[in-house]
């Protein structure tokens, strides 16, 4: 803007300066011509004075010679003044020779004027000589002759002076014309400058205003776009002035703003994701905590129940064995055809049933430590499925297996594992009295050290209500009429004893899936086997 302003003002100033120079030149010409005119007027005045003086001298001479005057002083004074004036004219003339302003006009008539002045000088001397003779001679005839001669000389002087006067007047007229022309030029220049300067000032002003307001408008619009949220908005101004600089800065600013906005949005998104993840984790942690709490409660309950059951079973096992032994002894003594056979069989069955319960209770309380070997669960599953597949009561059920034959072995007691899998499979089959699909699969869950063998048993049965899912592992909980409620409790205890985990997923009408996780046998260098898989966190 400053540059444009400077250029505009500079252009206008240049016009005014040029015009001022032109006017000054014309003023100088006018002043010079005025001075010349003044000088010429002075010279003209002197010529007129000389003409007057020489004519007056002539008149004085006539008066004197006619006897009207004895006084020749005026005559002499006139001519002396003429001489003085002539000297001044010569001086002016010689000065004009050295003046550049005069050379132009004088050059043409210089020689003749010089000659004329010299002629005047000569004639003046002759005239003065004649006058001196006239006024000092008493010879009338002589003075008459000299008077005629003086008159002729005076006329020559008058003619020469008059010629010079006319020339000077002509030069003066020329000077006056030059002066008028210079003034006219100055006037034209001033008018021209006013029109041109004014016009240019207007154009420059409009252009300047446009050059300032247009980019400013663009900037304002850009700012408005930014304020409306378009942080990447740019203004298309490429001038090299302050506005251009401002626009470039604005563009840089919006670019930075857009980048920062992007970063901020990314951060916000990330934060949201983190927040969401955190919430999820909190929820999961809360859920896990809740589950852990429930498991702990369940574990404690189981432990307490186990202890209690063990005590009860231990206290009841002996009397029950006695009762059973005595009953079998009594049974042998009662005749088979007495109508008591049915009752005896019922008592015997119930006693056997009690004995089994007590055994289950003892098993639950003290899972025996058995020898564990590398066991492939697929083999156990296959044997079990082959056992149940062709049983009559399960014909209406489709049994599927999806076994991963690449699974590693697990370090386990094969018999106990078989008990667990059988218990779960039978529960599943029994839950699908109306038919369904039993799916047994095996695979490896997790990687590296966390890798475990997972066996999943799913049925399409009625499922377990949500409120009862947590109770299925409790001892003596059963939904079956003839169940002891100890099968899942014992299975749970076996899996736990193997460092594994037993989970259930079920819901009313959704079927039930049991997942058994067992630690794999990991062969490190030296074939070190790891067995101590810690399932504490799982439980």
């Amino acid at each position, binding site marked *: 803007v400053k540059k444009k302003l400077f250029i505009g003002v500079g252009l206008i100033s240049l016009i005014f300066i040029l015009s001022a120079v032109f006017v000054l030149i014309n003023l100088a010409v*006018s002043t010079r011509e*005025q001075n010349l005119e003044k000088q010429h007027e002075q010279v003209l005045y002197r010529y007129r004075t000389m003409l007057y003086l020489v004519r007056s001298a002539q008149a004085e001479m006539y008066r*004197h010679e006619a006897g009207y005057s*004895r*006084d*020749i*002083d005026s*005559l*002499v*004074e006139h*001519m*002396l003044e003429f*001489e003085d004036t002539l000297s001044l004219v010569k001086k002016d003339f010689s000065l004009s020779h050295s003046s550049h302003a005069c050379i132009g006009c004088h050059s043409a008539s210089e020689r003749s004027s010089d000659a004329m002045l010299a002629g005047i000088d000569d004639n003046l001397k002759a005239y*003065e*000589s004649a*006058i*001196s003779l006239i*006024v*000092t*001679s*008493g*010879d009338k005839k002589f003075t008459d002759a000299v008077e005629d001669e003086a008159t002729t000389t005076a006329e020559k002087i008058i003619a020469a002076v008059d010629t010079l006067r006319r020339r000077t007047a002509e030069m003066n007229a020329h000077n*006056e014309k030059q*002066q*008028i022309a210079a*003034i006219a030029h100055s006037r034209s220049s001033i008018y021209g400058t006013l029109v041109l300067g004014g016009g240019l000032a207007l154009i420059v002003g409009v252009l300047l205003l446009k050059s300032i307001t247009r980019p400013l408008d663009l900037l304002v619009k850009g700012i408005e776009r930014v304020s409306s949220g378009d942080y990447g908005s740019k203004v298309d101004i490429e001038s090299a002035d302050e506005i251009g600089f401002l626009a470039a800065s604005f563009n840089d600013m919006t670019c930075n703003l857009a980048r920062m906005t992007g970063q901020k949005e990314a951060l916000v998104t990330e934060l949201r994701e983190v927040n969401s993840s955190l919430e999820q984790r909190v929820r999961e942690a809360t859920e896990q905590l809740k589950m852990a709490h429930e498991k702990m409660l369940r574990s404690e309950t189981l432990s307490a129940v186990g202890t209690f059951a063990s005590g009860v079973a231990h206290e009841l096992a002996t009397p029950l064995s006695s009762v059973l032994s005595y009953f079998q002894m009594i049974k042998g003594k009662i005749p088979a055809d007495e109508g008591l056979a049915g009752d005896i069989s019922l008592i015997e069955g119930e006693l056997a049933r009690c004995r089994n319960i007590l055994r289950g209770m003892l098993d639950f309380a003290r899972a025996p430590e058995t020898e564990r070997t590398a066991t492939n669960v697929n083999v156990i599953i296959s044997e079990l499925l082959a056992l149940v597949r062709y049983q009559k009561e399960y014909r209406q059920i489709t049994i599927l297996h999806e076994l991963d034959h690449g699974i590693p072995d697990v370090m386990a007691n094969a018999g106990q594992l078989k008990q667990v899998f059988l218990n779960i499979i039978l529960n599943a089959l029994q839950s699908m009295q109306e038919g369904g699909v039993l799916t047994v699969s095996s695979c490896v869950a997790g990687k590296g050290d966390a890798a475990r063998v997972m066996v999943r048993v799913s049925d399409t049965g009625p499922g377990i209500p949500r409120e009862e899912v947590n109770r299925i592992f409790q001892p003596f909980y059963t939904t079956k009429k003839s169940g002891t409620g100890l099968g899942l409790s014992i299975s749970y205890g076996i899996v736990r004893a193997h460092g594994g985990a037993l989970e259930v997923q079920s819901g009313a009408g959704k079927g039930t899936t049991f997942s058994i996780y067992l630690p794999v046998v990991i062969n490190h260098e030296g074939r070190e086997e790891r067995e101590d898989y810690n399932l504490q966190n799982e439980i």
Partner: protein
Amino acid sequence: MRLLKNIQALLCIGFLATVVLGGCTDRQKTEAVSDNTPEVKATFGIGLLPAENVFLQKRRYRPLAEYLSKRLDMDVRTKLLDSYDAVYAQMLDRSVDAAFFGSLSYVALHSRLPLEPIARPLRANGGSTYRGIIFALKGKGITEDIGTWKGKRIALVEKSTTSGYLFPAWYLMTKGIRNPARYFRKVVYAGSHEAAIVEVLDGHADIGCANDAVFNRYVEKRPRMRDEFVVLASSLPFPSDTLGVRKDIDPGLELKMKETLLGMDKTEEGREVLDKFGAKRFVVTRGADYGPILDMLKAIGLRPEDIALEAIGRKGESEADDVLSR
């Protein structure tokens, strides 16, 4: 042109306004008015008789008139008049108060009008007087012996001149020649002193009469002729160019003028004026200095009042002017 004049007029008005508004006091205004009032001074006219070049003569007298004006606090003016008759007339009507007189003219005018001689210039060549001389060319057999003059042609100047007529007439009379027209073969009136010399040189006359100042100047310009002439007779010195004033003017003024003239050579300014005038100083002229003139007039039987004033001064009487003309 009109524009420039208007601008000039405006500038003048501005200037005047500046001057007036700038604190021009009443006292200053009064002074300005009084400065513009021309001072009226008494005039003192000095008559001059025309010399050979009246213009040079007038210029030569200007510094003297200006000097006297300053010293006497008067407007001293010189006035060229064509004859002593005119001088006499203007002295009578008091238009002229003084005049530079030749010796004969003074005597003639003094006989008609009371005059007082004051002073005369001592010329640059040392003289304040002139003499009449009678001369001839050498080798013509003409000597101081008047007898050798007989039958010769003599060139006089004019009858109104001291050197060119009065002195030769008196000299011849003293030598016993009362009728020159008979004694000489031809008597020529040359009209001027220089013309009389030329008459002799050209052989139109054998003997010439002239003012020694003119003669000396003539031969000084022509050194080869210096030895060609022989001066046959010479008069007593006559006072040249005496300033005579009317006796009826203020005696104090007369005295002051006399003292001023006589004291000019004592001041630097006076000496400069004298230099321009062509004189060393002014010397006193007394009435007695004109005794020889009167004696000569008496000897030839003329009275001063008989001298025609119209004739005096034309080509003869202002010898000093001729000599001093440059």
